[in-house]
């Protein structure tokens, strides 16, 4: 019995990288899902499961940057909602749609700027500031639409959200992959990305090394605001209608995907590869649950549990490793001093 337990712990300890674990998890989900229905593995299904959550995973990209930078933006889904609602309201007020879209993107930038100002320059905790703004921006969105639902946008706008643009891919998916490539290049290969990691590890070291810490944080929040607004507009285009609660509660999925991807909640470490794997896991999991006829609400509960697990598991993992180290040290102790 004891031996069996040791074997299990040993194999756990060997699984060193989180990404390896994610790959394993993904494979398991793939296998289980494909057993349920043959349609699961079809290209169209795989594209569909992306499309169903495409707006969230676009925001995951900027959220990854922020969490690596040891900050967070809980207000991103509210900015999505605000941009969508404002666009709809402007449209009903007779503003030409292209102009409305541009204004909404600008508002996204302003929201990010506002967040960043308090966090980078007034040194307030990003958790509290963006929590407050999560409420505030959502409130503003409701002010515009009250309890109405607004649709009936021009045909070209709806098609942009729904029709495949290149091959089988609609615009939002192309936007995601373009942003993904840009994000990988910036985070993993550029000087700016290096600064993001250094600040996440230790903002003081960065400041003492001449890094413009405040500017980096500011840029990240502005980017987060802009991308969130963009995602909100794409969401509006896909649904063809907007309500005050558009994108409400998306923070759960977004943060889950980032943290499950191995990004440390304390900042300083993580990779977009891991995050991409976790995006695939969450999407396929949701898809699988839909195939198994589980309701959307139940899926939300599972994602919530997954979020906790994604942080809890590495902690347990680390404790197991520490236990092993202690045993090694105990062995080494026999040497005389």
């Amino acid at each position, binding site marked *: 019995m004891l031996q069996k337990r040791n074997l299990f712990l040993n194999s756990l300890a060997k699984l060193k990288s989180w990404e390896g674990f994610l790959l394993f998890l993904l494979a398991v989900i793939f296998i289980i899902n494909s057993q349920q229905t043959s349609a699961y593995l079809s290209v169209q299904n795989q594209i569909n499961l992306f499309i169903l959550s495409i707006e969230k995973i676009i925001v995951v990209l900027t959220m990854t940057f922020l969490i690596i930078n040891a900050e*967070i933006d809980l207000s991103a889904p509210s900015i999505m909602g605000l941009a969508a609602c404002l666009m709809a309201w402007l449209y009903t007020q007779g503003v030409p749609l292209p102009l409305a879209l541009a204004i909404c993107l600008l508002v996204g930038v302003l929201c990010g700027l506002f967040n960043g100002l*308090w966090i980078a320059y*007034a*040194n*307030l*905790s990003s*958790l*509290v*500031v963006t*929590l*407050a*703004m*999560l*409420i*505030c*921006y*959502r*409130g*503003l969105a*409701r*002010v515009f639409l*009250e309890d109405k639902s607004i649709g009936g946008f021009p045909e070209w706008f709806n098609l942009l959200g729904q029709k495949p643009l290149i091959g089988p891919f609609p615009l939002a998916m192309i936007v995601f992959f373009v942003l993904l490539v840009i994000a990988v290049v910036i985070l993993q290969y550029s000087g700016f990305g290096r600064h993001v990691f250094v600040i996440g590890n230790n903002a003081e070291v960065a400041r003492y090394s001449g890094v413009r810490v405040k500017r980096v944080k500011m840029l990240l929040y502005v980017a987060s605001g802009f991308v969130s607004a963009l995602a909100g507009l794409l969401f509006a285009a896909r649904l063809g209608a907007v309500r*005050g609660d558009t994108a409400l*509660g998306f*923070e*759960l999925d977004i*943060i*889950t995907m980032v*943290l499950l991807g191995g990004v440390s*909640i304390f900042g300083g470490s993580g990779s977009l590869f891991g995050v991409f794997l976790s995006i695939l896991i969450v999407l396929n999991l949701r898809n699988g649950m839909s195939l198994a006829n589980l*309701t959307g*609400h*139940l899926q*939300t*509960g*599972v*994602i*919530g*549990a*997954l*979020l*906790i697990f994604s*942080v*809890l598991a590495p*902690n*347990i993992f680390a404790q197991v490793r520490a236990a092993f180290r202690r045993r090694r040290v105990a062995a080494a102790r026999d040497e005389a001093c």
Partner: protein
Amino acid sequence: MKRLLSMTSPERVRELILILLIVLVSLFFSSQIPNYFNARFFNRVSTSVAITAVIAIGQTLVFLTRNFDLSVGSIVGFTAYFVGQQLTRNNDIPPALAVLMAVGIGVVMGAINGVIISYGRVPSIITTIGTLAVYRTLLIEFSDAQTVLTAKLPKWVVDLPRVNIISFGDLDIRLVVGIMLLVVVIFQFVLTYLPFGRRLYAIGSNPEAARNAGFPSQQIVFIAFVLSGALSGLAGFLFLARFGNVTVVAGQGLEFASIAAIVVGGVSNNGGSGTVFGALLGAIMIDLLENSLIRWLAISEFWRDAILGMLILLAVASDKLVLSKLRSIWTRSELQITDETVVEKQEAEHHVAKA
């Protein structure tokens, strides 16, 4: 001046300012809304404060230790629904058991949060965003999207919100308000006079020193979450009593309202400072604003959340920028060691003794 300063503290001054603001806000609305002060309005605000404040007090316990509890809204919803459903099915359940049931569910849910946060070392913000979703899902699965209806509830529950303890002319102090005041008094006592309460402050004030002093920090944080859950459970019961009709979205957003209340009430998000009385003031402030906005025709009632968010931000920012200035007015205490001669004499004795 010095004596004046020693009689109070920056935190007291802050609470006084808040009381002043509450008065100013109500004066402002009374100038805008005809017949603003009436008994109905008082009851409406006071019963809604009762619910917000009870949750806010639980949130305060958690905040003092530098943590968050975002799952309170879901716990309120779940307990309100669960207890409501049991009462619908069985009208004979005694009131005490119903309350106990609500608190018990809250304790279990709070304990789950506490275990994960305290012993699993998962940051509270992550854990409670997760359980916010999980508990709400439980509610939806459990309810099958049905609604608890007032009509099917036992009579004592339906009548509960209108039970008065005491009346001042037109103004009634309702039972739910009485329960809330009782909770305020109990927890103000816990935080001021019980070693457990003082240790909540200590842990938030300097976690490392708390570890060094050998406090069972994990256990204390765990209990804070259990209590937060229990109070949310109680609030769930009050929620049921107040509204009667409970849907699956019951209590949604109360996590934000409770955080807004205590941040406005001066509970620091860096832990270690804040009072139950402050939390109550904060709850009064936001519920007063909310209920006044609904009656104010000049702007849409949908401004409520936008204003709530800005209020939290302003409270935090002013604490950061103003409270630190306020604190520096209170004189820095320098170390003074008196009566050198005594020490020197002892010193001499010491040497004699050695010789």
